[in-house]
């Protein structure tokens, strides 16, 4: 049974589909020449050698999903599909730089990217990798970059907003699936952002030009309308464009301040050092017992427990609501060259929904489940008390996304729960150890129950029923 992968349906040159659980990319005949050029120009080899483009092998043509097929490819599969609104500042920045590097190499091979959406980039083994093999076309001599506007919307605008306004504006990508409109970015950015020459050109003047020339036909318009006469865009100018974009992106820097969450583990009131050691060794034991290939660390903070799972060979996605902790986590992945940890921004009380056409172009979080194992450490009180989610519903959600579960119960007497209760009425009569076990027993088999010495918290190893 074939299933077209949502998100690849817009492109007439081919699409991605799964058959018997295997991922394939069909190249349509209409795109045959461009695809062959990718291979014959040496661009495919150059990009895959640098790990910038996902590798593929040619599959049996009889696997084609439709009669328009020219070839069927079997691409290497990415471990976990993530989206720009789930990335930290540096992840989006690295994805932008990878896109520009790819475009620079493509130019050297007489080709060019015909789109520059952030959704064409995924993170694999700690590095950004381009996944759309069909994004390359023969360089159109004398014409500017057809994907320039898209690059600015998907990368430059959100990065500038995150840098100059607020890092949480990365979430704008969730609303604007084809990138942040440049007029909106220009409106939101402070005046001082205009002092950066590259931002002045690529965002502010670009937005003004878009507004002024909206609807006009151009040589790049690929319509039958009369083409506007203009100077040819030299290859030198093209290189200049990519260089100024790269320099603009590189100069956008954001360092997280010590936010509430990134300071969490520094605070003595949360854990004594001995209790933290006990918790770490319990997590290690639980992971060893479950032997997961994939782990979701839910509420991972900067990822100390994710790394315990990753060290045992599990491909670990490290979710946290705070962009600052995710940034710190990602910086560690880069500096330590960690290949098994993928930090992502995720509010578990409002996880990524299905967005885009028919709500299915970009998957919701649970569609990317299940993981072999989930770690829900110091999480349940945030969901149950801070967000008023009944324990049964917390259990149902976790049951939906994992097979094995390492979960920590944090009682009301715990100082961190006291902080949460200080500003709200205690309407959580079921929030007891007994209530917790009752709620979870319906969905999970409780295999181990261990008190964390030095605290009042309890760790559980469970398996879904």
């Amino acid at each position: 049974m074939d299933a077209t992968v949502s998100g690849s349906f817009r492109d007439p040159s081919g699409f991605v589909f799964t058959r018997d659980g295997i991922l394939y990319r069909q190249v349509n005949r209409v795109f045959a020449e461009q695809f062959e050029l990718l291979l014959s120009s040496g661009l495919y080899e150059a990009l895959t050698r640098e790990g910038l483009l996902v590798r593929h092998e040619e599959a049996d043509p009889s696997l084609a999903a439709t009669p328009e097929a020219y070839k069927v490819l079997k691409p290497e599969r990415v471990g976990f599909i993530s989206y720009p609104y789930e990335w930290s500042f540096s992840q989006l920045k690295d994805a932008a730089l990878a896109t520009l590097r790819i475009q620079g190499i493509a130019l050297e091979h007489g080709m060019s990217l015909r789109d520059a959406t952030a959704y064409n980039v995924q993170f694999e083994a700690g590095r950004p990798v381009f996944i759309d093999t069909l994004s390359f076309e023969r360089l159109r001599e004398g014409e500017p970059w057809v994907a320039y506007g898209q690059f600015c919307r998907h990368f430059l605008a959100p990065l500038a907003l995150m840098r100059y306004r607020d890092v949480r504006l990365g979430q704008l990508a969730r609303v604007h699936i084809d990138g942040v409109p440049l007029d909106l970015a220009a409106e939101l950015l402070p005046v001082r952002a205009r002092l950066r020459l590259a931002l002045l050109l690529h965002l502010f003047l670009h937005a003004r030009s878009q507004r002024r020339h909206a609807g006009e036909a151009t040589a790049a318009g690929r319509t039958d309308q009369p083409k506007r006469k203009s100077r040819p865009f030299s290859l030198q100018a093209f290189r200049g464009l990519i260089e100024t974009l790269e320099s603009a992106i590189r100069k956008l820097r954001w360092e997280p301040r010590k936010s509430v969450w990134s300071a969490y583990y520094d605070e003595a009131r949360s854990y004594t050092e001995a209790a933290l050691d006990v918790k770490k060794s319990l997590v290690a034991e639980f992971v060893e017992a479950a032997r997961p290939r994939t782990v979701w660390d839910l509420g991972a903070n900067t990822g100390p427990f994710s790394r315990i799972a990753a060290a045992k060979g599990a491909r670990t996605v490290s979710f946290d609501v705070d962009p600052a902790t995710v940034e710190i986590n990602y910086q560690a992945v880069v500096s330590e060259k960690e290949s098994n940890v993928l930090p992502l921004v995720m509010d578990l009380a409002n996880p990524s929904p299905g967005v885009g056409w028919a709500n299915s172009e970009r998957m919701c979080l649970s569609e990317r489940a299940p993981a072999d194992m989930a770690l829900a450490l110091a999480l349940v009180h945030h969901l149950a008390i801070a967000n008023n989610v009944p324990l049964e519903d917390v259990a149902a959600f976790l049951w939906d996304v994992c097979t094995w579960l390492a979960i920590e119960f944090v009682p009301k007497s715990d100082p961190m729960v006291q902080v949460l209760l200080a500003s709200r009425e205690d309407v959580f009569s079921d929030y007891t150890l007994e209530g917790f076990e009752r709620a979870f027993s319906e969905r999970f088999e409780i295999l181990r129950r261990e008190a964390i010495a030095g605290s009042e918290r309890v760790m559980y190893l469970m398996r879904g029923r």
Partner: protein
Amino acid sequence: MRPSLAYIDANSGSYLIQVIAGVGLAALVAIKVFWRRVWGFVTRKKPQTTVESGPPREE
């Protein structure tokens, strides 16, 4: 508000700003290349001096 249609971005404003900035962008690369060459010329390692080519350098 204009609808967003583009899989392939053919936005004329994006096209024209590149064309307008093209000369400047090309000049930027040319200047960069020029300075790289000048810098390379200035900082290049001097060839080892020999008896024939002049007196030995003072260390």
